[in-house]
């Protein structure tokens, strides 16, 4: 059964439509990531699910119950915030128990839950300290603990790692994944960081302008993006795009010609049209593999960015700037001629007008 169901959700502030006719079904025990850039509506959606924002139309169901009019504390959710939002004047233990005491949960039950959360999150030695005496990572764990003790089914995370520095972010990311594996709760996670999304999610919902652009597993989003926006958004460095014509199953732009046999079309593609051909820098082959590639070309290197583990090479193909990712040890320099190969089965093709995948 679905843990969280969102039906026809609309949210309007004055005359601005922030969320439009949103539908989303989240599976039990799933780790769902809402991904997008600022202003796309992901945090807003999370706040609606939490009950902190009132919606203009539609319904929200959690664990089969219609919670559209329920208070946040009655929805069976726990929430973790970007700024941790710990109660500064209370100890860690106070923070964990404040809500439970208010709900008149029996004392030994409170003790049991706190002990369990403290053990899972390894915050036992911190219980008597105040938030000001904790590091960022510790504070975030306490914030997660506060949600954990609520003994709920659904956890909501609002960009919880954004306030941490890069190394800490990476460490906590791993811990979050372990936590999900250990607890098995449904987790809805908002972030603008694609790496967090790709590594943590069972499914990712990429949002833009209040709508969901694609809802799929990380693998599918990466390999089969449903539209150009998603294709461009995911992947660093981003995908190379060429705008040209699709005629009779072959894409052409300038002197680049790609026969699309073996490409997994999802539409009928019977009519010829303007199309956008996309291929990721890491999917362009160089070296010996070029001879076996369907499409081969020779390009002149404009710029080289050595990054240690990889080398990013800039060149021009069919009049467009494009990037190739090569091994970090590749010996290339500006002005070199480079043979490259493109495999259309690993590429993406979009309708130039609708930007949807063909």
């Amino acid at each position, binding site marked *: 059964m679905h843990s969280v169901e969102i039906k026809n959700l609309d949210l309007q502030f004055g005359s601005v439509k922030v969320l439009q006719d949103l539908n989303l079904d989240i599976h039990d025990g799933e780790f769902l990531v809402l991904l997008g850039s600022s202003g796309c509506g992901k945090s807003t959606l999370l706040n609606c699910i939490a009950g902190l924002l009132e919606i203009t139309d539609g319904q929200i169901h959690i664990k089969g119950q219609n919670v559209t009019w329920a208070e*946040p504390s009655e929805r069976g959710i726990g929430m973790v915030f970007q700024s941790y939002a710990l109660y500064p004047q209370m100890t860690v233990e106070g923070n964990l128990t404040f809500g439970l005491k208010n709900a008149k949960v029996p004392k030994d039950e409170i003790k049991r839950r706190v002990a369990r959360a403290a053990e899972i999150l390894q915050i036992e030695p911190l219980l008597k300290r105040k938030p000001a005496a904790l590091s960022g990572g510790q504070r975030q764990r306490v914030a997660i603990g506060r949600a954990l003790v609520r003994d709920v089914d659904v956890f909501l995370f609002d960009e919880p790692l954004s306030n941490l520095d890069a190394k800490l972010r990476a460490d906590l990311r791993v811990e979050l994944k372990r936590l999900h594996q250990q607890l098995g709760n449904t987790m809805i996670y908002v972030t603008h960081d694609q790496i967090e999304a790709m590594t943590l999610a069972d499914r990712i919902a990429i949002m833009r302008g209040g709508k969901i652009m694609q809802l799929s597993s990380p693998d599918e989003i990466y390999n089969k993006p449903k539209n150009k926006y998603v294709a461009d958004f995911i992947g660093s460095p981003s995908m190379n795009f060429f705008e040209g014509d699709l005629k009779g199953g072959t894409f052409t732009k300038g002197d680049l010609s790609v026969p699309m046999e073996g490409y997994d079309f999802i539409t009928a593609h019977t009519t010829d049209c303007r199309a956008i051909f996309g291929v990721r820098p890491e999917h362009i082959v160089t070296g010996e593999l070029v001879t076996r590639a369907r499409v081969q070309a020779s390009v002149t290197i404009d710029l080289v960015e050595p990054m240690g583990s990889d080398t990013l090479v800039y060149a021009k193909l069919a009049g467009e700037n494009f990037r190739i990712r090569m091994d970090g040890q590749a010996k290339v320099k500006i002005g070199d001629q480079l043979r490259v190969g493109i495999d259309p089965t690993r590429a993406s093709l979009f309708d130039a007008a609708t930007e949807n995948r063909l």
Partner: protein
Amino acid sequence: MASSGRPSQLFRNKTAKIAAIPMILTALVVFVGGTIWTIVYSFTKSGLLPKLKWYGLKQYDRLWSTTKWMVSIENLAIYGICMLILVFIIGFVLACLIDQKVRFENTFRSIILYPYALSFVVTGLVWQWILNPEFGLQNIVRDMGWESFAFDPLYNADIAIYGVLIAGLWQGSGLVMVLMLAGLRGIDQEVWKASRVDGIPAWKTYLLIVIPMMRPVFITTLVLVATGIVKLYDLIVAQTGGGPGIATEVPAKYVYDAMFQANNLGQGFAASTMMLVTVAIVVIPWAILEFGGSKKHG
């Protein structure tokens, strides 16, 4: 910081130093010098003119055995304590109400705060008028039928000070409201969200989470209000002139009367020194609290 070898540290930033001369002069001559002068002369027998004749603690003896001074102190204590408690309650409650995302916030705030823009003299006079038994509030209520309604605090020596308190509250609560509102708005919104998710009712959130978080604002406002209370003078002069009799005398008025009407400078100096001591008792602990340890005044 040795400046050996350098011609003169004194001439670096020369223009800045010259420009700061007014500040330096004021600080030294007026604030430090003037204060010390007054304290020193409080130990003299100065009458119409300051006289450097040592008088020991006799001025203070006289001060503390003068009824008028004792009444002044008592009045200041009553006014001060009541004012502090009430102005905070009123100011905070008003701030909470306005913080509830009310429409017309600007209108409400404008109306509650405008008394603060008025002189104490204006405030004192208008409340003298409203509390006038013949024409004011008492008269109105009596006209409405309650024949025996009595409300003329300004004519009753025992409670006259409360009449002044009403005026003072009317004038000052707007300020406290504005400061409390600023403090409320400085609270991280996500703490409010966390509290809602935890199911904590609003009143509990205010009491146990928000108010403790607003401690710095409370303290700053407290110091501001307290130092204003000690200076109470204009309001008394305008609303009651110190009366009936000496029922609403306050230290600041005692000082003025002694210095400029009774030709008794010595008493005036002693009384003002006592006022300084009172303020020091409030300000010094606060200053240590705020700035003690970390010398970050730059």
